[in-house]
């Protein structure tokens, strides 16, 4: 970005042009959250400049509020001092949603991680946004309940992050994603006010503010409390693998299952390349010689479960499944899921670098779309492994490359963009669950025209009147849509080295 371009945008957003006095900033933040709640040394800030995506940017400071009141004071301070601010949970996001792209204050919710109330009788829990997703389901399990969205980063990712990204997971096929499991929010709006949307009860009159906020990727305010729906654990579960000697047969089976209407609780697909990677790291018993497998999980009363499993087996066999393996016990089931949820990390062990793509297509288009992904792999001469939520039509091709090879990264990014463009052209969308963030911001025009984006900007500005809240995310600057963002993606090679991000 040229200097003049940057100035123009800053003037538009109302951010400061005067230099920031770091020492004063740190003092002022410490006055709000205490000295132990502020990080400002470059060494520390470096740990907060990235998430699970390819972009990075250093904040001026990282602050760790403990209460909504502190968050409100931070936001008011940002308004007064014309500073950008960005919220962050565990940093497992895959589209750059929590990267402070313009610097400023990074508000980390790690210390707001309490379960405030488990209201089992009303099937609700009230939690702070920094609570780890899995910790919620573990805490409510003794009541026979769980929180449905289960992204595979669930051991690390936070409920606040789930709200921001409208996260999914393999078990959201029947019960829906985060937006279907949040009934209330406490929010600090960009003018620094604490607001309450929805509650434990549903059907509040007026506009569905909760529906707007969930999935808005931290661009409309900072969530400080979440009221979630809890769901009774299923009486019984049956997990099995259907094994295929061609990807096409496997994707036809997916279409067949959906068309038939016996929709299982989870329906995940992996191709041969992915099976190899997963088996090498998990030893869960996935068949190495299969072209593709479907991992299917049914839930319900035991009798019904048998019947549903039989119907699905029939469909799979009709579409050419060569084998059907049922997990005998909880240990086998767990091994299969561990393999599936560790899929991204497994690819990290196989290839120096990989680029995770998240796209969605109508489920009936899966066979042709997967064939096209194969063509894209050949075109760029890069292996692409496939592992995804087949039941939702939500693809996760992993483009493997070697960042040390000149030109490889650029090819990987181009391949990813080709895949997303194809998803859009096939009537699908840019992202099923990883978000737009900065990664796909300039691809928004694949599915939205300037008028659509203009209306989204109006909504954003209705809340973020000064343009300080999570800048540069989701909605592209007019005229910049469609540019390939090779420059920022150049850092992708560092992603894998950093750690094994197992979010999907």
């Amino acid at each position, binding site marked *: 970005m040229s200097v003049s371009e940057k100035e123009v945008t800053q003037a538009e957003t109302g951010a400061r042009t005067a230099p920031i006095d770091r020492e004063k900033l740190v003092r002022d933040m410490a006055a709000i959250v205490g000295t132990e709640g502020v990080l400002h040394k470059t060494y520390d800030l470096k740990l907060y400049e990235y998430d699970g995506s390819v972009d990075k940017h250093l904040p001026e400071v990282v602050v760790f509020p403990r209460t909504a009141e502190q968050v409100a004071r931070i936001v008011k301070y940002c308004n007064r001092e014309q500073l950008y601010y960005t919220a962050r949970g565990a940093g497992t996001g895959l589209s750059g949603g929590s990267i402070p792209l313009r610097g400023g204050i990074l508000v980390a919710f790690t210390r707001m991680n309490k379960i405030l109330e488990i*209201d089992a009788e*009303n*099937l609700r829990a009230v939690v702070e946004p920094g609570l780890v997703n899995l910790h919620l389901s573990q805490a409510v399990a003794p009541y026979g*309940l769980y929180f449905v969205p289960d992204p595979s980063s669930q051991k690390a990712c936070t409920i606040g992050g789930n709200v921001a*990204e*409208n996260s999914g997971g393999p078990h959201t096929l029947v019960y829906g994603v985060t*937006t*279907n499991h949040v009934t209330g929010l406490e929010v600090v709006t960009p003018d620094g*006010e604490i*607001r*309450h*949307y*929805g509650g*434990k*009860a*549903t*059907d*509040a*009159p*007026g*506009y*569905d503010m909760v*529906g*707007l906020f969930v*999935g808005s990727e931290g661009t409309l305010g900072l969530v400080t409390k979440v*009221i979630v729906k809890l769901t*009774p654990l*299923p*009486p019984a579960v049956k997990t099995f693998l259907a094994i295929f000697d061609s990807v096409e047969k496997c994707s036809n089976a997916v279409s067949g299952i959906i068309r038939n*209407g016996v929709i299982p609780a989870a329906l995940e697909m992996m191709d041969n390349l992915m099976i190899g990677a997963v088996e090498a790291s998990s030893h869960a018993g996935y068949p190495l010689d299969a072209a593709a497998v479907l991992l299917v999980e049914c839930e*319900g*009363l035991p*009798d*019904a479960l048998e019947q549903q499993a039989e119907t699905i087996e029939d469909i799979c066999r009709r579409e050419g499944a060569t084998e059907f393996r049922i997990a005998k016990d909880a240990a086998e089931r767990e091994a299969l899921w561990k393999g599936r949820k560790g899929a991204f990390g497994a690819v990290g062990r196989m290839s120096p670098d990989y680029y995770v793509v998240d796209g*969605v297509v*109508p*489920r*009936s288009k899966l066979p042709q779309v997967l064939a096209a992904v194969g063509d894209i792999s050949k075109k760029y001469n890069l292996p692409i492994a496939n592992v995804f939520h087949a039941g*939702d*039509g*939500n693809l996760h091709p992993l483009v493997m490359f070697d960042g040390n090879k000149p030109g490889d990264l650029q090819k990987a990014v181009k391949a990813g963009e080709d895949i997303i463009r194809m998803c859009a052209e096939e*009537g*699908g*969308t840019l*992202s099923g*669950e990883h978000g737009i963030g900065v990664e*796909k911001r300039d691809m*928004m025009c694949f*599915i*939205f025209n300037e008028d*659509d984006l*203009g*209306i*989204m900007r109006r*909504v*954003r*500005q*209705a*809340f973020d009147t000064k343009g300080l809240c999570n800048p540069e995310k*989701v909605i592209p600057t007019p005229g910049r849509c469609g540019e390939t963002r090779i420059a920022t993606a150049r850092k992708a090679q560092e992603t894998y080295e950093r750690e094994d991000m197992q979010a999907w």
Partner: protein
Amino acid sequence: MTLQESNPQVVNPASELEAAQLFEEFSRENLKVRLTGAGTKANLGNPLGPCQRLVSTSQLTALVDYQPEDLTITVQVGLPFERLQAILGEQGQMLPLDPPELAGQTIGGILATNRSGPRRLLYGTARDLLIGCRFVLSDGSIGHSGGRVVKNVAGYDLHKLFIGSYGTLGLLTEVTFKVVPQPQYIGVGQAEFASVEQACQAARLCARSNLMPSALEIVQEDISPNTSCKLLFAAEGMQVAVDGQLAGLSEICWKAGAASVELLEDGPTVLKAQSNLENRFNTAEGNFLQIRVASTLTGLPEVHALLVEIGRVGGGEAQVVSRAGSGLAYLLAKPTTGNLEKLVPLIKKAREASRVDGGSLVIERAPLELWPQLDAWGEFGDATDSMRALKDALDPRHLLNPDLLKWL
């Protein structure tokens, strides 16, 4: 027609583009615009303010795209709801919304007023089923959000904002739903309880069980003191599953102290009757009062009792129904005219009591005399300014359906 309104000039745009051009023109001339579908829900909520134009979706009735193998359907909003269900029914599918049946009512009207029915317990409401939309704003700009795939996080979920917005943000033109296969079997059981508290307790146990009831309805047909009430419980899906679910739910009811439990014949008809409770009354008649309270499951017995009190004091025919798995209670009543004044403080009291944990009391329909003293929605606490900011962003001159949402 119970509404007092000016005599607006009616326009029936035949396309989204035409609607946009009309809106642009109206906006230039600063004309207030009323939006309507079939007009079956025109008496819901606050009386509308005067309008100069009436935009009807009567010509926006196309089936745009239906992919049975993807379980998605896209239609224009003027399409009658029954027609949509018939199209889906030919493929053994359905949109799992079961609002009160009203002849000719449109998809757009159901979304704008966020209607739902007893089976929402299993399938959710419009916000869980609508996956994308196209719309026209009052200044004539056209936009869309979401798409035609079941999972999508690209951009803001603007389509959710239109649900229950009573046409105050813009005109929906085209909507996409995820649909489901029709269940093979629907079964319904009924348990008698000595008190509403006991029935609510049983319903809570059913809702918390892993038996996935599709509806839990507490019906109090006779609201005189110390009368019993019944809990209807439903399950749907494969018959073998439903049989097991109903057996489990029956057992819960027995344990919760039911005086009797029986399985009913013809579950679908029983559930349809529950959807259509308000249709037993002539809702267009001047003295009809319909109140909906949203509450937590544990708060339901109290609000149910408060609604019973309003019904009793009203003096006429009255019925209270609680959608006990979803935390909703409805009063349907025909208070006698002489008693109307006495109802105002009672309704205000019930509204106050309902305002905990995000609960609310909405006056859906009321005798005209009551409107000057009562607002349909009540207050929204601290969320009001956010909603007003949204309204200002999307309909800056407040041209659409004026006064329907008074607090704006």
